[in-house]
């Protein structure tokens, strides 16, 4: 059996908070197979975003190992793309130029870059907006452009940090459907961090429930419902309710 795409073993991460050290993630161990879709849900403060940033190589773990595509993560790499909550398109570049930024000039010839950009614009349905500036796009379109940028250099793993949380619910539902289609088409692994349990159950093979303070894995739930999933089906609703109950157990008593 081949090694998994991503392995986290006993990962710890803390940040200095004034002169105190605050533990953000504790003893995170996890494997992700090639092409899998894993979602992380948890209340704020459970370190979900930090977890993604560690895998992306934007932060360094205090201890433990992160192995991606048979190599320890020491910094951002070509194996891994990332989508943020904000689209992070550069406002002075067109959509096509923004996507082009993800293609290092040394690794891709000009003709290949043009072809890849056109393919990925089509994949996210923005072919007509190649030369538009980001200011002209709606929030949903901008996030599609960000997805195209995240995929264009053919990473093996795409990290999504609450990618749809700033969108209106109609656009969000639509983009969730799109993301599922893209995932099935591209056959790459995706790691999604979200507040939205429904989003997690709709998209993921596996939902990882994180407990807060410090962030640690509290449950791993396999979602075996057939795709494309019916959000109104009894199984879907039951699974969503079960995960929500898990999460509510960690919520502190409301402060009045």
């Amino acid at each position, binding site marked *: 059996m081949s090694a998994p795409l991503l392995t986290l073993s006993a990962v710890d991460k803390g940040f200095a908070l004034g002169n105190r050290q605050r533990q953000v993630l504790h003893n995170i161990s996890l494997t992700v197979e090639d092409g899998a879709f894993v979602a992380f849900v948890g209340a704020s403060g459970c370190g979900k975003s930090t977890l993604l940033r560690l895998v992306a190589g934007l932060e360094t773990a205090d201890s433990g190992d992160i192995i991606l595509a048979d190599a320890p993560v020491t910094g951002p790499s070509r194996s891994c793309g990332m989508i943020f909550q904000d689209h*992070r398109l550069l406002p002075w570049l067109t959509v096509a130029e923004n996507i082009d930024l993800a293609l290092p000039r040394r690794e891709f010839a000009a003709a290949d870059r043009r072809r890849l950009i056109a393919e990925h614009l089509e994949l996210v349905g923005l072919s007509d907006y190649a030369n538009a*500036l980001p200011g002209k796009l709606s929030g949903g379109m901008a996030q599609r452009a960000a997805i195209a940028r995240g995929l264009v250099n053919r990473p093996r793993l795409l990290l999504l940090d609450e990618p749809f949380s700033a969108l209106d619910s109609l656009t969000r539902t639509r983009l969730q459907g799109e993301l599922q289609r893209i995932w099935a088409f591209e056959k790459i692994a995706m790691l999604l961090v979200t507040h939205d349990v429904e989003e997690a159950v709709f998209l993921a093979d596996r939902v990882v429930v994180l407990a807060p303070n410090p962030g640690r894995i509290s449950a791993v739930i396999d979602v075996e419902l057939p795709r494309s999933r019916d959000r109104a089906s009894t199984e879907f609703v039951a699974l969503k309710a079960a995960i929500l109950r898990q999460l509510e157990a960690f919520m502190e008593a409301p402060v009045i």
Partner: protein
Amino acid sequence: MSGAALAFPLRRWAARLGIIGLGLALPALIAVIWQSAAVLGLVDPTVWASPALVAVAALQQLQDPQFWSDFGASLLRDAEGTAIGIAVGLPAGLGLGLSRFTRDLFAPLLDAAKAIPIFTWVPLLSVWVGSGEAGKVTFIALAAMLPVLFSGVEGVFSLNPAHLELARLLRLGRFRRLARLVLPGAAPAILRGVRLSLLFGWLATIGAEYLFEAGGGIGTNIMAARELYRLDLVVVDMIAIGLIGILFDGFSTLLDNYFLRWTAEKS
């Protein structure tokens, strides 16, 4: 051609002319009051160079080759000094802004430099590079360098951290990072600095012609007019200086419109 297609640019031009007319209304009003005061004998027209005298002097000046050669000398001097100042100040500012170490290292020195009036450099520059053309151009360069240097530091410092993180994630090379991210991101601040540099360079040009030895130029022209007690000529020169200032400002606006066109695209 249909009427509607014509009406739009016509209306836009009318609006633009209206704005220019509004801007000219106040100087015109001042000229009218001033001239009335002179005609009514309320002020001495030779001491308070009346608009009519200034107009006559202006017509004389426009036909005087000496005026044009002075004007040309000032513009050339300004162009040399400002070009050098921006060419040195902008890369220096961007370079200083790129690292926290250099920023902290230079901050006290630059803050002090900001507070030192530019003309206090005259004695030093006169000794170091002479009080002839080289001294003047160096003085102008120094004046034009400072605004764009500060705005370069500020521009890099004000880059969006999320964009810098993106550059790290996408592993942008040094050149691409500079061309695609740093320069465009710092452009609003840089262009504010360039606008000031053009202005400061021009002010310093006239100042240099006063403060260094005479060598042609509008400043020299003004001093000569003062010797002759021709205040009308002084006012003509002042107006010419101001008009060049408006020209530079318009040029800066053109630069803004070109380099910052993405800021106008927000829907």
